[in-house]
């Protein structure tokens, strides 16, 4: 866990010149400007539901009251679209959710203030999350929370099939066996969304990754990745694994398949907790970690957002103060309790995990979340390279046909397309 050195304006236009008497200069990082009292900040969020919106608004109100400022919370229906419009129009929100797929474009176009160290040192957060928001050796924005993938099992179906704790899917072989036993009638043993954002967890378990070791290029066609996809193909061929939507499973995503009884197991992240509580309260389920691959390595994927501050904001000092409050341990715990995302600080995450240890939950309770929390340590972040969205879409379109396709071809196709993005 390195201490970040002082950053002296890495060619980023964020180092604004105007200084007011109350401007604050962090010991490392860009010069912050603007008053810190009596300002109105624009705060753009992309909420997953009422729980998250209310939590964000409450946090904003609390900070605003204690510092004598105002916060204008905007819940966007399409964050990428609205942020792009705001940036190109020159009136971006002061603080906003920085999503991983958009992160690199924003950093490249100097729209993101490299505020990380001004808020808190990188060592306070999980390294994988810090890595997701580091571009060109600059820690741009503080990760706000994270969600990892784990397996959710319908405990009624598990018990009815006569499976016990010894059969929990801790290895690939056990997962295959469980999926086979749980596939009966119209219930499929394992259902996942047809996306690299699910299948990729198995790449990590096999010891593979998205990028090569030096981080200079992609490595989708590595033997480990091919091995992972071939393992999944084996399950799909026998009908123990199905992908939604389509493929004969009538659900929009894995959580819906679990909630409507079409799937016994699914692979989803923390957000499933809120969905099960509100939409499928009668389903009893538990959360277990994803299996270890052939080499005994555990792997999962992590999805995270960061607290982005606009480089061209007129009140960056106030914005940093706001983000400091939002990223504080107490506030992170409040967010976690409100809608189930995991704090990005290891200490706070452990504390939150201790509070939720019930092993069997109906949809109305929060299940044992230790599986989600431990995943933070070894999780792969999403790809942030500009233009990767189209490459991922092309791969996702082929996943439905995995049973009859060639994993090697699918992966080398994605590798070719992804590498083409890195050529200038």
């Amino acid at each position: 866990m390195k201490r970040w050195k002082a950053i002296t304006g890495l060619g980023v236009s964020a180092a604004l010149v105007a200084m007011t008497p109350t401007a604050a200069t962090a010991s490392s990082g860009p010069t912050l400007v603007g008053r810190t009292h009596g300002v109105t900040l624009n705060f753009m969020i992309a909420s997953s539901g009422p729980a998250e919106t209310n939590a964000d608004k409450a946090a904003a109100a609390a900070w605003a009251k204690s510092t004598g400022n105002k916060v204008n919370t905007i819940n966007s229906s399409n964050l990428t679209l609205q942020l792009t419009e705001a940036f190109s129009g020159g009136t971006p929100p002061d603080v906003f959710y920085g999503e991983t797929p958009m992160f690199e474009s924003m950093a490249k176009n100097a729209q993101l203030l490299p505020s990380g160290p001004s808020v808190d040192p990188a060592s306070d957060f999980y390294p994988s999350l810090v890595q997701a928001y580091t571009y060109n050796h600059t820690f741009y924005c503080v990760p706000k929370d994270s969600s990892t993938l784990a397996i959710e099992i319908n405990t009624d179906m598990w018990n009815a099939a006569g499976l016990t704790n010894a059969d929990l899917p801790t290895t690939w072989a056990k997962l295959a066996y469980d999926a086979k036993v749980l596939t009966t009638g119209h219930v499929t043993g394992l259902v996942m969304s047809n996306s690299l954002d699910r299948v990729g967890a198995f790449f990590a378990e096999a010891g593979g990754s998205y990028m090569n070791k030096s981080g200079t290029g992609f490595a989708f066609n590595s033997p480990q990745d091919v091995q992972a996809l071939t393992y999944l193909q084996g399950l799909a061929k026998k009908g123990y694994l199905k992908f939604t939507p389509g493929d004969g499973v009538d659900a929009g995503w894995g959580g819906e398949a679990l909630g409507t009884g079409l799937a016994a197991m699914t692979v989803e992240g923390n957000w499933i907790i809120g969905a099960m509580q509100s939409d499928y309260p009668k389903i009893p389920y538990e959360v277990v970690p994803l299996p270890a691959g052939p080499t005994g390595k555990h792997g999962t994927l992590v999805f995270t957002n960061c607290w982005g501050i606009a480089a061209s904001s007129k009140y960056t000092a106030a914005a940093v103060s706001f983000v400091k409050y939002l990223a504080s341990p107490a506030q992170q715990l409040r967010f976690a309790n409100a809608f189930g995302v995991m704090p990005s600080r290891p200490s706070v995450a452990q504390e939150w995990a201790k509070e939720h240890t019930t092993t069997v939950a109906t949809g109305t309770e929060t299940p044992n979340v230790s599986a989600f929390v431990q995943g933070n340590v070894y999780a792969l972040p999403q790809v942030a390279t500009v233009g990767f969205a189209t490459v991922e879409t092309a791969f996702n379109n082929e996943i439905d046909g995995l049973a009859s396709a060639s994993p090697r071809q699918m992966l080398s196709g994605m590798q070719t397309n992804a590498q083409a993005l890195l050529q200038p």
Partner: protein
Amino acid sequence: MATVPQTGAPINTRGELTADAPAPRDGARAKPKSGRSRLRRGENLFGWLFVSPSVAILVLFMVIPIFLALYVSFTNWSGLTSPFSHSVQFVGLTNYRTLVTRPGLYQTDFATSIRDNFYFFLFTVPLQTVLALWLANLVNSKFLRAKGFFRTAFYFPSVTSSIAITIVFIFLFQGDGVVNTILGWFGAKGPDWIYDQNGVFTNILNGLGISSPGWGNHMFIGLSLWNWVAGPSIGMCVLIILLVWTTSGTFMLFFLAAMQAIGEEVDEASSIDGTTPWQRFRFVTVPMLRPALVLVVTLGFISTWQVFDQVVLLGPQNPTTITPSYFAYQVSFQDSNFGAGAAVAFLLFCLIIFLTVLQRRFIKEDLTK
């Protein structure tokens, strides 16, 4: 002296009004020459005044953005800064080359979207024209009661929100939705409508025993020939049904107006001559509807190449329902590559113009000209 017309203005021997207009009886015509052109100028001014809000909106929201998009298509603008900022570089025809000539994901995706939209157009335009014509004929019938009700009922889908209709269609065509349940009553197992990527022609050819023939492997702009002739996918068929149902109401009105302009005497004359209703329709009504037919086909043709609303809801999961306009949106916002997105839009524009010109050459609107 020549006859004085009723206004009282004198006419000379050649029958022309003399330049000096004497005091006429009708006061309104007493205005001098300069006054008359002042009135004309006033009319002009008011004309422009009334039209100016629409013109302003058109210029501001259509003409200027079109030229801006043309400029953007020659740059590498990411959309996250002003398009005129110094970080935006001029790249010439690179965006166009990436879409058409350079092998890669964009070329394949663009060719797929063109192919999808082409089949969509091929099936939608004839179907909606025929349906609109048939409906117009029904509603125009002398013996139909409650014409107003039927006109409203057929026209109603066109004024309903396209998003609302699409959501209902998604609901109906789901794997275990209403359509498949009804098909189940007849013992047929319906496909997973919206997500099925298999082309209709591919299915037919497979049924005949032909699959992956040798000639199918030749590549043409990033797609194999076998893919080009795959036909509309099942997912695209849902979109076709949706569009035909929604737009035939509007075109029915065009045909209805044209039919009612034909008048009853023509119909009566031809029935006196001893024609059957079908002959009447085919040899008398339809030829007289030719201008309306050409209008409907042209409008239908142009609008099918611009389908977007329905694809946003129905399409993203199924690559065979992506249209070029949706592809431009996807590339622009998700990849932060507005240069390529604008290039897609202009390539589409050129394609539409080219096909429209072809169509106008081969289908003359008025045979008498």
